[in-house]
């Protein structure tokens, strides 16, 4: 059972990881911690619902439209709302994105009402079953899809940031905005791109998790909380850190849920994370220097 739980934990953790990843990308380049992140994704899930279930579009097409919409919302938010106040204090940043969160929640309520809506799984066939001497591992197809897509996104992102010129330029902006301007890099454009990527990732996460949670205004709340925790655990500046952070939280949660207490699953997981942070305040892969806070 322990293997099965770890695998299930990795799949849950993969979702935490990409939420963390999206947060970290935006944070690294623009220094904004986006507390409305999950709720921006939620809007995309509603767009998907509208395209797929109401208008009756093709699944893939609806998927692409909702992700593109999420990217656009993210772009607009960064450009229109957050860019003008880039240098405010962390507390104010929390509040302003919190205001955004309330606003998005309200908009969703107003536009789509508060009934739960359903998005179907893309893959609904028989689960993948692996038998081996120690036991049996069952992975539902939708979870395989999640794992596949998340891995794909992570690999694509890492390749983009490490191999392409533009990706490297974005990393340059994250490390030193002023000097990157001196290289001729349009840092303002890079910031927008980082939010577009972040928004697309958030939408992807929302659409992937929606069949499980249903679509409703608060659907992303717990995913967002865990995504944040994962990002902090990973060091908030580090992309590999956020992935490791997300997956380890997923696994910790499942193991705690199995062997310690179901009721206190989240509590124990959070306690472990807080303990790690107290021992290593900069997170697992964070660096002690130059924290952007």
């Amino acid at each position, binding site marked *: 059972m322990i293997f099965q739980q770890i695998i299930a934990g990795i799949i849950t953790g993969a979702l935490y990881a990409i939420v963390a990843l999206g947060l970290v990308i935006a944070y690294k380049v623009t220094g904004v911690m986006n507390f409305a992140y999950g709720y921006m994704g939620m809007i995309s899930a509603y767009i998907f619902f509208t395209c797929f279930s109401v208008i009756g579009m093709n699944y893939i097409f609806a998927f692409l439209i909702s992700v593109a919409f999420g990217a656009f919302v993210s772009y607009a938010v960064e450009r229109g709302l957050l860019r003008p106040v880039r240098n405010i204090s962390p*507390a104010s940043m929390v509040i302003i994105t919190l205001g955004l969160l*309330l606003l998005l929640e*309200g908009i969703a*309520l107003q536009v789509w009402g508060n009934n739960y809506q359903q998005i179907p799984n893309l893959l609904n066939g028989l689960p993948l079953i692996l038998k081996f001497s120690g036991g049996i591992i069952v992975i539902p197809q939708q979870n395989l899809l999640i794992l596949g897509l998340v891995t794909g996104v992570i690999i694509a992102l890492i390749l983009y940031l490490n191999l392409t010129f533009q990706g490297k330029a974005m990393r340059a902006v994250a490390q030193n905005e002023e000097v990157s301007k001196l290289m001729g890099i349009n840092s303002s454009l890079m910031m927008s791109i980082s939010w577009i990527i972040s928004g697309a990732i958030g939408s992807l996460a929302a659409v992937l998790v929606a069949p499980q949670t249903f679509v409703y205004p608060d659907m992303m709340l717990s995913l967002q*909380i865990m995504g*944040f925790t994962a990002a902090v655990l990973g060091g908030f500046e580090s992309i590999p850190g956020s992935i490791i952070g997300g997956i380890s939280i997923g696994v910790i949660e499942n193991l705690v849920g199995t062997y310690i207490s179901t009721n206190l699953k*989240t*509590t124990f997981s959070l306690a472990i994370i807080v303990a790690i942070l107290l021992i290593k305040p900069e997170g697992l892969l964070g660096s002690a220097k130059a924290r952007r*806070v």
Partner: protein
Amino acid sequence: MKKYLWFTPFVLVPLPFLGYPFLISIFVLIGIYTIAAIGMDILTTWAGQISLGNAAFFAIGAYTSAIMIVNFHIPFLIAFLVSGFLSMLIGILVGLPALRVSGFYLAVVTMAFGIAIQQIIGVFQITGGYNGIRNIPAPSFWIFKASNPIYQYYIVLFIIFLAFVIISRVSFSKSGLALFAMRDSEIAATAFGVNLLKYKLAAFASSAALTGFAGSLYASAIGFISPSQFDLTLSLDLLAIVIVGGAGSVIGVMIGAAFFVGLPFLLSGYNFSITIIQGIALILILLFLPKGLVQAFKIGKVRKKA
């Protein structure tokens, strides 16, 4: 603003006699949130620490007081004081991480604390699990039972007044200025003898104590508590109240609390989502009135002069 401060009691004291008894219950609620938000204010505005977990202190205060009164029949006043004290002790424990982490990291640590406390309360028998605790009697002082909301209103008002008096005395004294100094520049504050350890813990302690007092009043005023009432939203609301109303001003916090607690009642008949208004208000206030709604009144005043 200061000039017109004397006017406030003349508005607040006779308020219950407007003739809308149910309104008083709302005023009581606004007052209780004001007390908790003053606690938040001390932490954020005064000491510059973020907390996304203050709902936990609210819960600790409410549950301590409710358990003492319902299960052990301890007089309200004692339960009230103990709940503030216990919150304070736990506040100090939570403050310890604040010495190691700051900014967003602290926000996440306190958020984790808030979520954990909510979950822990749901698990134990003595707290009534997810069922919560019911039939918590109204605040009483020996034979006097403040079951009428009017009495509760004056009790709450009195506590806010006390908090206001203490805050106004402290704000230009050693401890208040030391907190401000710590917030503005830790390095300079240290250089002039401010012990960061002591003041960070003191900020957490007093914030937790005030929030705990508010929780105790809440339990007795509402008469029913359950874990779902003390969720992340409450913590965020407390923070938002401070920001909207005006950081650092008791009157401002009151206005903020009225905005966040009172407005939903006002709009409960209409089919319009209150969060849109709250969200827009938060954003606009942060963009244009970084010192909160209080600043708007100030601006009005200056214009009149000019």
